[in-house]
């Protein structure tokens, strides 16, 4: 139960002024610009966009600046901002198969039509702190080479497997609009579209831990990375007044196709199954973890035993949102004075009763012994 408190206005205003000063830090150190954050903290910006569920790199960078780099606070700011804007509608589904690739790797095939490109990756770095970065230096220059002729056409690995019927096909688009958990409250059981929406905006750490748990045996899915692709896709939108698809521009996305073992059933011959991950920007860890959890959440659909945390959709979906989680955890620090007073009185009364019982026993015990003796 919540009971309002009043007062504290001056202290709160001053705390906010102090926060502003602390945010700026030592004023003899140059201030960060939003563009610097956008360009040089790009993966953090991508994460704010993904979990904030709003694609706008400048806005995410500004939110990070305002939040002093606190990820969830920045997500909070972005989510609050979006509630002030009207929604024009929904885009046409993006065509990730036609992605302009910056990175594309597969752990299942060495040779792929279109090739494997590493792109800007931390993979194969030595994870040694580079002290040269502590000093300002020349802008690094990437190597260049002529693209091979086949680079423009890079079909999905799942399409290649699909040709031989070795992997389950995706459920066909029946034209019905997908559910939207920002419009209708989440209801269980949630279909796969809603689960993917929840996972896409879910906390990376939570989704990562759940994905990891499936690898350690809590709902095994025997995953292989069929493909990870990072790059840009065109977004199109059909405004009601125009009636044709208008190009809105390009966004950066990361897609992960997880290929999983499946033994088949009486009706379905053995084939691979799929887990899917998609995130804004370059968010590889998130897309991979999402794909693992997506597959784990399909256990019931595929007739597998259900029992591990990552297979329990109510557990996963109700707890994956960082903002909901932080709201409920952090509200504990708000004034609960009246509740606590009530608890205090209860504890005092129980203690008094306990003390009374403890004081009485001598007489009581003596009496009981006497009774027993009689």
């Amino acid at each position: 139960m919540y009971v309002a408190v009043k007062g504290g206005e001056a202290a709160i205003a001053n705390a906010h002024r102090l926060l502003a000063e602390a945010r700026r830090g030592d004023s003899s150190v140059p201030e960060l610009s939003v563009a610097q954050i956008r360009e040089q903290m790009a993966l953090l910006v991508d994460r704010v966009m993904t979990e904030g569920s709003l694609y706008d790199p400048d806005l995410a960078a500004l939110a990070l600046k305002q939040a002093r780099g606190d990820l969830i606070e920045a997500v909070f700011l972005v989510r609050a901002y979006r509630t002030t804007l009207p929604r024009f509608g929904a885009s046409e589904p993006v065509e990730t198969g036609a992605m302009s690739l910056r990175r594309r790797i597969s752990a299942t095939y060495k040779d792929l039509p279109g090739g494997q490109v590493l792109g800007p990756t931390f993979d194969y770095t030595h994870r040694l702190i580079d002290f040269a970065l502590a000093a300002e230096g020349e802008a690094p220059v990437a190597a260049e080479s002529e693209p091979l002729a086949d680079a423009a056409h890079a079909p999905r690995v799942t399409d290649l497997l699909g040709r031989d019927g070795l992997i389950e096909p995706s459920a066909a688009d029946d034209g019905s609009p997908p559910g939207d958990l920002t419009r209708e409250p989440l209801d269980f059981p949630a279909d796969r579209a809603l689960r993917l929406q929840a996972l896409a905006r879910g906390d990376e750490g939570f989704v990562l831990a759940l994905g990891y748990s499936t690898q350690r045996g809590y709902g095994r899915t025997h995953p292989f990375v069929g493909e990870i692709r990072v790059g840009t896709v065109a977004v199109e939108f059909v405004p009601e007044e125009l009636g044709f698809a208008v190009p809105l521009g390009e966004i950066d996305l990361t897609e992960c196709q997880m290929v999983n073992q499946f033994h088949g059933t009486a009706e379905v011959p053995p084939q691979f199954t799929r887990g899917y991950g998609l995130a804004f920007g370059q968010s590889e860890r998130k897309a991979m973890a999402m794909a693992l959890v997506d597959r784990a959440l399909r256990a019931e659909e595929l007739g597998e035993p259900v029992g591990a945390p990552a297979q329990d959709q109510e557990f996963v979906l109700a707890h994956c949102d960082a903002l909901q989680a932080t709201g409920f955890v952090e509200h504990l620090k708000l004034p609960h004075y009246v509740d606590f007073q009530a608890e205090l009185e209860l504890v005092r009364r129980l203690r008094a009763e306990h003390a009374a019982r403890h004081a009485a026993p001598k007489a009581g015990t003596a009496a009981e012994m006497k009774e027993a003796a009689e």
Partner: protein
Amino acid sequence: MPDPNPAARRPEAPDLTARRAVMALCGEAHPEELRRALLQLGAAEDPEDLRPPETGLVMTRGRIGGDGRPFNLGEATVTRAAVRLSGGETGFAYHLGRDRAKARLAATLDALWQVRGRRAAVEVALAPVAARRAEERAAEARRIAATRVNFFTMARGED
């Protein structure tokens, strides 16, 4: 009902492809590039706002498995503008981001493109944007190509 006559409000197909290309180019342009294009077109007229430029959201959708049923990935900020020339041509712009001034410039160019006699001139005025973007894409492709791997060659080890 939904649409009394859908065909009536859709431009002819080849026209539509060209118009969408101009719209896409405007979306990729810097605001100064659009200002320069309008200057080059001698478009002194300040069109009427059918709807003042406005920032809102579009829910971006992906497909389950990349190729299946759609799902809602997350929203994107989108800014739109709609203008009308004195001749009655209406121009529209919908762009990712929050640049209202740019959306209005793009809507003006879309309206001018619909004036039959100015269509070619609009496309010429936007050619520098197309050239810049093509060069940027090619440079990016060269940097990406340098990171192409061939694990097969390494695994074979015989040559």
